[in-house]
């Protein structure tokens, strides 16, 4: 990891890769699943990015609306996972 805040890295991936060419750009507090900005394929890609980039496994039972509601909530969830990983 580069030390870059999780939220920044996630936002960059979503805006530059996931939503590339769709003319949409989101911020950390924007709803990304309620309004369909990110579809089910997008959720799967986002998880693939997280697992590859941060070396954190995202178990299926953690893939919830609460965790993925905004980039900020997702970063909060991931920070918890990273802390858990480094504590064990």
């Amino acid at each position: 990891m580069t030390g870059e805040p999780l939220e920044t890295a996630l936002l960059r991936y979503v805006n530059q890769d996931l939503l590339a060419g769709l003319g949409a750009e989101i911020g950390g507090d924007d709803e990304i699943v309620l309004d369909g900005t990110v579809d089910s394929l997008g959720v799967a890609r986002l998880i693939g990015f997280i697992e590859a980039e941060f070396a954190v496994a995202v178990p299926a039972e953690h893939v919830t609306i609460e965790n993925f509601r905004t980039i900020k909530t997702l970063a909060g969830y991931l920070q918890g996972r990273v802390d858990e990983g480094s504590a064990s």
Partner: protein
Amino acid sequence: MTRSAAMTYLLPHLLERSAEAQPDHPALRFRDESLTYSALHARAAQLANALTADGMEKGDRVGILLNKGLESAVALYGIMLAGGVYVPIDPFAPPARAEFVIRDCGIRRLILGERTRSTLEALAANDVPLDLVVGLEDGDFPYRTISWESVATLPVTPPSVSATELDLCYVLYTSGSTGTPKGIMHTHRSALSWAEVSAAAYQLSPRDVISNYAPLHFDLSTLDFFGGACAGATTVIIPEEHTKFPASLAGLVEEEQLTVFYTVPMALIQLAQPGIMDGRDFSKLRLVLFGGEPMPVKHLREIMTHLPDAEFVNVYGPTETNGCTHYRVTEVPAAGSAPLPIGRPYPNVEALVVDDDSKPVDDGATGELLIRTPTMMRGYWGRDDLNEGAFYRRNQFGGLPEVFHRTGDLVAAREDGTLAFLGRRDRQIKSRGNRVELDEVEAVLVGHDDVREAAVYAVPDVNGSLEIQAAVILSGTAVSETDLLAYLRGVLPSYAVPGSLHTEDAFPRTSSGKIDRLALQAQASVAYASVKL
């Protein structure tokens, strides 16, 4: 003219009947809101009065461009109570698709939500002609508008209409991402028949809490709403985002205490992933219905271990006919990947299996399934070019011919009399001179322990022939693409083995949750052309 209380001939009469019989019973729930039968009927009648006051006439098509919610159910009943034909438009589709449906179907009135306002802006920018938009405060639009608040001041007695059961009640557009969408027309009679057949087949009652998983433009939704209203049950509209998050969906099924869950195989495959259903109470769930595409047996086995007390039913039927056959799963073989049968016809449905000359095949032989049923569509909207081929007319007894729908699906009768689904007729291709069922190759791939889902499609190669390609989603990472191809070579004839195979994290899906094979094929064709030409 007043209608006899016992006479039900229009689809919205189901709502009227339940509103009289049990006015205070919940008809709908969505998040923390609900509507009783009398409230739903009153709101639908108000909408019908708004439409009639605007000059709407019997048979006019009205678009529903709404995200899921109580208003979407109010909209479909309101439109029909005014004698109109409802046409759902996928709220997540690009504006160009909404424009296509509106122009193709001659829609002049639209029911809108706040979240679909941007689509309306795109429509207005393209000068799409509309008369009235319901659900909008006055805005900068070249259309008449009426807000839900204004609709709520109108009378709660529906207008009198002259519609008959032979008139159209809805048009559902096919949902593929490529090709020209087709509008499938249903009449009050065909829709009402299906509501009654499904309510009876599954013994739906006021005690039932039925899911509405499918979007309105996907025909599974008609059982959820109209089968439910026929029985006086409660329908729980599942918010769209839950379909992307299986853990949240499992939570909703538990919290809403669903008794009947009607969904697509994808949802059940996702729910069966480790950790999703553990520790939850699904004891209220008595019936799991699934349809839309084949359910791999190994995933069915998994989900059934989580729901040991529920009955599982494979529902088969194209949107053109509604449900035709169903298979009540009594036991699933412990091993193997033989496809799940589609079972037997519902009462009042005739099924024929015919060869290429439309002659009945011998028992056990493969042929195309033809269906004759009162739940059958009227035809495709404005597509006389397709309507001729969609039907088969049999003059057996003189007089008017019996009309069957050509499903385009290949089936064969099994020894126990149930039908086995063997794939789409148009997914049958020639590979090196041999006939290959792409759906069969797919089923074999999904039969591999490490494959969660598979899509197989044919891509034109430089010789003008077809190359079979496969994409898979793995359940683990234990298997390589080379190993999978080796596995296929051991099971399939060489001409049916894909020329290439790759893994994906997820598949593109149609808005109804089916694997979008045409999109995969289109991507592959582009890639193929750029690499090999």
